[in-house]
């Protein structure tokens, strides 16, 4: 019998923006909600993504997004160093993409059978970064 599956989720900029959308029938927001429902582990937003997406936790308009993805992953000293290392390996990746990859690696932790899904509009660079990350990363294009 297979063990309990553990699926974490990391949101990239466009996924974060989609979740903040209050437009009726937003197809991208629906795709992010599907990813959130499928993830039974942590759903995390790197703080650099929040800056790029303009996601201020205290804005009243962010209330629904805050509930579905309430956990931040801050860019501390160790994460910044790792992001620099990853950008040297994938120079086309943006700063934010690199922090997304670092967060994926961080939340996978020591659970070797956990999968970390990254929802992004920049699947190419994230897939390239994922090959250098010590985690099973499933990159989903938005």
């Amino acid at each position, binding site marked *: 019998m*297979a063990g309990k599956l553990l699926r974490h989720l990391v949101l990239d900029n466009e996924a974060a923006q989609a979740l903040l959308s209050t437009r009726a029938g937003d197809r991208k927001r*629906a795709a992010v909600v*599907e990813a959130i429902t499928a993830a039974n582990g942590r759903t995390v937003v790197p703080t650099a993504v929040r800056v790029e997406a303009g996601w201020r936790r205290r804005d009243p308009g962010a209330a629904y997004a805050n509930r579905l993805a*309430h956990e931040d992953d801050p860019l501390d000293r160790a994460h910044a160093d790792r992001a620099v290392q990853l950008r040297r390996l994938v120079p086309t990746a943006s700063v934010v993409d690199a922090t997304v990859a670092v967060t994926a690696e961080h939340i996978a932790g020591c659970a070797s059978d956990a999968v970390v899904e990254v929802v992004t509009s920049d699947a190419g660079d994230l897939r390239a970064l994922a090959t250098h990350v010590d985690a099973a990363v499933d990159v989903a294009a938005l």
Partner: protein
Amino acid sequence: MSRLDDLFEALADLADARGESKATSIRQPAALHRAAQVATELGMDESLTAATNRALAERIRAFARQQALVAHLRRFPEDRPQLAAVASRRVRGTGHPAARHPELVEAAAQWIEDREPDWIFVNADETIDQVLRYVEMVTAGVGIPRTATA
């Protein structure tokens, strides 16, 4: 700010390990207390307090997650995902048999959705697990008589 938002703020503080600890006393069935003590001695957790906190935090996170989903879908009903889609997504990138048998995921999800149309409002996680367990059982041959070999 709603009570649900208060809950998420408290959970965010918990994730950041902020805030003080607070002594509390709860009544537990004596047998549960004894079982927890023995399990702790056997290595389940570093202490009875850690075991209690971990279990409670896990239960609250699951509750909050379900409530957040329900609140969102009440506001944006068109965002409601299909059970087959979320079950397939949960196993993507894993070795679970459901990743190789989308037709079984589809059939099991349809069967469950017919019986429990409000699955996502009741317990989304448990329902997804039900679909995956079904696929695992079918692909393992459970309930299928084995043919005798000569």
